[in-house]
């Protein structure tokens, strides 16, 4: 027991040193990860409070947004969710199955991209905002750093949905994932499984760990809403 205490203490101190600010990553600094299987890619047991997570995907209709919402739903459990929708495309009713409570959600619909970035920073800087979801096409390193600092001030989670071509750009985000939808392999399942989708989620880079690992996750529609498909709960890293 003593040894485990020492290890826990040491790892805590390492984390403290690793953090840019003075804040240290204790358990209260983490938001639960809502997607079992994904924890293989994370350094800690959940999402950092006051950090950015980038979700990259190629094209539209990949399901990355739903996956990101479902994975980080604990972040806005008792606070506000801000969704920045510069395209005016988000369809609010469809977000309800992803644990989005419309009565605690604000939709911001700016007309120009600079306004979207400004709103994102303003929302991230505000305490009481649990998470901010935003499509970000272009992001300069300076702007990204500003967002990271804003998130550290506010303590919310910034969920940035980005195109796959952003994978080469520098980033201050805690994690950068690439989401690739996988076609349903089983033809028999395909006929009935109207409500299950699977993805390969690859960690491109993390602030505290190297990228390259990936997992396969699958969501299916159970009686109590979404759930992780059983056979994949114990999936092995695929890459």
């Amino acid at each position, binding site marked *: 027991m003593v040894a485990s205490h020492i290890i826990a203490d040491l790892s805590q101190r390492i984390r403290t040193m690793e953090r840019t600010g003075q804040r240290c990553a204790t358990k209260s600094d983490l938001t639960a990860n809502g997607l079992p299987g994904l924890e293989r890619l994370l350094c800690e047991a959940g999402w950092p409070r006051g950090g950015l997570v980038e979700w990259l995907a190629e094209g*539209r209709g990949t399901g990355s947004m*739903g996956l990101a919402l479902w994975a980080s739903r604990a972040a806005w459990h008792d606070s506000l969710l801000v969704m920045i929708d510069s395209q005016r495309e988000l*369809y*609010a*009713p469809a977000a309800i199955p992803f644990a989005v409570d419309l009565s605690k959600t604000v939709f911001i619909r700016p*007309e120009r991209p600079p306004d979207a970035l400004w709103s994102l920073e303003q929302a991230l800087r505000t305490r009481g905002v649990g998470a901010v979801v935003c499509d970000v096409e272009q992001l300069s390193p300076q702007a990204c750093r500003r967002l990271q600092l804003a998130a550290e001030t506010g303590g919310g989670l910034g969920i940035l949905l980005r195109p796959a071509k952003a994978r080469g750009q520098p980033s201050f985000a805690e994690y950068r994932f690439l989401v690739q939808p996988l076609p349903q392999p089983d033809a028999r399942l395909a006929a009935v499984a*109207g409500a299950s989708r699977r993805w390969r989620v690859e960690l491109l880079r993390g602030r505290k760990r190297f990228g390259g690992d990936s997992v396969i996750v699958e969501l299916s529609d159970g009686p109590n*809403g*979404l759930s992780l498909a059983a056979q994949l709960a114990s999936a092995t890293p695929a890459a």
Partner: protein
Amino acid sequence: MARMVCLWLPNWPLQRLRHERPELKTRPVVLFSNTGNRGPRVVAWSAAIKGSCVQNSKLAEVVSQVVPALCPPILNFERTTPHVLAIGMPLAEAEALLAGRDVPAHIEQHDPAADVAGLRELAHTCNVFSPLFGIEEASSPECVLLDVTGCEHLFGGEQNLVAALVNDFQQRGFQVRAALSPTIGAAWATAHYGSPTPCGSVDPRMRPNQPNHKGLGDANLEEMLAPLPVTALRLPRKIVETLHELGLHRISQLRALPRESLPSRFGPELLKRLDQAFGDAPELLVAERPAEPIAVTWVTDEPLTDRESLRFVCRELLDELMNQLKPRREGVRQLFCQVKGTAARPVELLVSLVSPCDIAKHLLELLGLQIDRADLPEGISFVRLEATRIESLATRQRDLFGLEANTDTHREVSSLLDRLSNRLGATAVVRAATVPDAQPELSVAHVPCNLIDSQASGAASAQWHSLCRQSSRHIPCAVATSQADGTWNVPATFRWQARPLRLFAPPQRIEATTAGPEGAPMHFRWERREHRVIRSWGPERIETGWWRDQSICRDYFRVETQTGHHLWLFRCFDQAAWFIHGAFD
């Protein structure tokens, strides 16, 4: 001699409620109060609850049995229509009596403070008739009082004045009775118990176009009040009951008794009211004061040329404005800023806030966001700031997204929403709610976060809450959704992947090849790329009724392309074409 008008709004709590929410006009309404220790009791109810006659109160019963003529005149109003309910009845009993009716009753808690505030607001609208107006002093006031001494010639006589007053209220949808008398007490009595004239006003002594008041002297007052019931004297119920037990029903009977004996028998209240009605004791009209506009102005001879100086001026003005507001413990909810230059029209900026604010810095920040974007005139020489809407800081407990009011978090969030709304525009910062509509693009409503008008925000927030209730996990029932095979399918549960997270507006037209005339798409071309469909779900037919301006008839398919992307396509029957409507992102 003074000339007083009493304007009675019978059953004011209900009138107020129905005026604020017109949709309740067609429904029976029951108001209850929880103040006693015997559980919720009915305080007021509306017409449209008709049935076997139960008298409103014991008092009315006594009066009607003994002297039927002394009942309040029939007003064609709710209080006197036959009812099944009674004031003071337990709410549960009322609910049981109302159960099983065609139109469900609207049951709401009585809000006395809102009634008084509403009446006060109404009194302010009377300032076109008289500069001195107020409301009656009672526990639950229902009357607006006006001192019209010397005002009648502006309306061509007293009768015309009262007629204009009544007409004004009736046009706004209120039911009123008005009376004009030398004293407040007499006016109150005649308004409540006098015989009505065709225009709704009551004044048996009034002669048209007779401006002098001598015709209505003390003798006439006596003659006018004598036949009225003792309840017309604004007495506590207990005294009235005692009087009835002694067989005293009319004011004339009271006048016949020796004056000195009244206080010892019935307490001082009776004599005071009697004297007030007959003008022997003074009664003050506590006049409402119109709220002074809270505004500050800055004028200079040397025009400003840059925005930075303007900001400085605004800061000074805001500090001054806040100093005016601070003693009142009030905050600004809406700020109006007018900037005049040398030549051009004045620039007008409007800052709206989510919750009242008394911090000059925050207001300056919001104003600055607008100043930065405004097209300011050259050479600014005049700046005026006016707090057009003020609200109390202490009492307002707004429930903002379930956050507890008056905490730091609450303040920060409301400040964020203020900043966003003022820079991006109110329509860009919205909450969403589902609407029961089959057409996907119409099934969501966006409500701005900072609605300013109290009535509008009340209505909108009621609408918002009702929308939220509908939207828990269920998609609203579709008007007409059927499977292509003809079986009706109401998508009761709003499941995952039933609707896409992104909906394109408008739907984008695509070229698609299908398996058959009614079949699913197999290939389609979108965004300059070929997509091959490997799986598809559907069709789900969404069809709206012919009564719509633009009815739709679409067969929706969710398709999975060879790259694993999920998209939402539909076949439009009107145009015989394929569209892509959304992406399951």
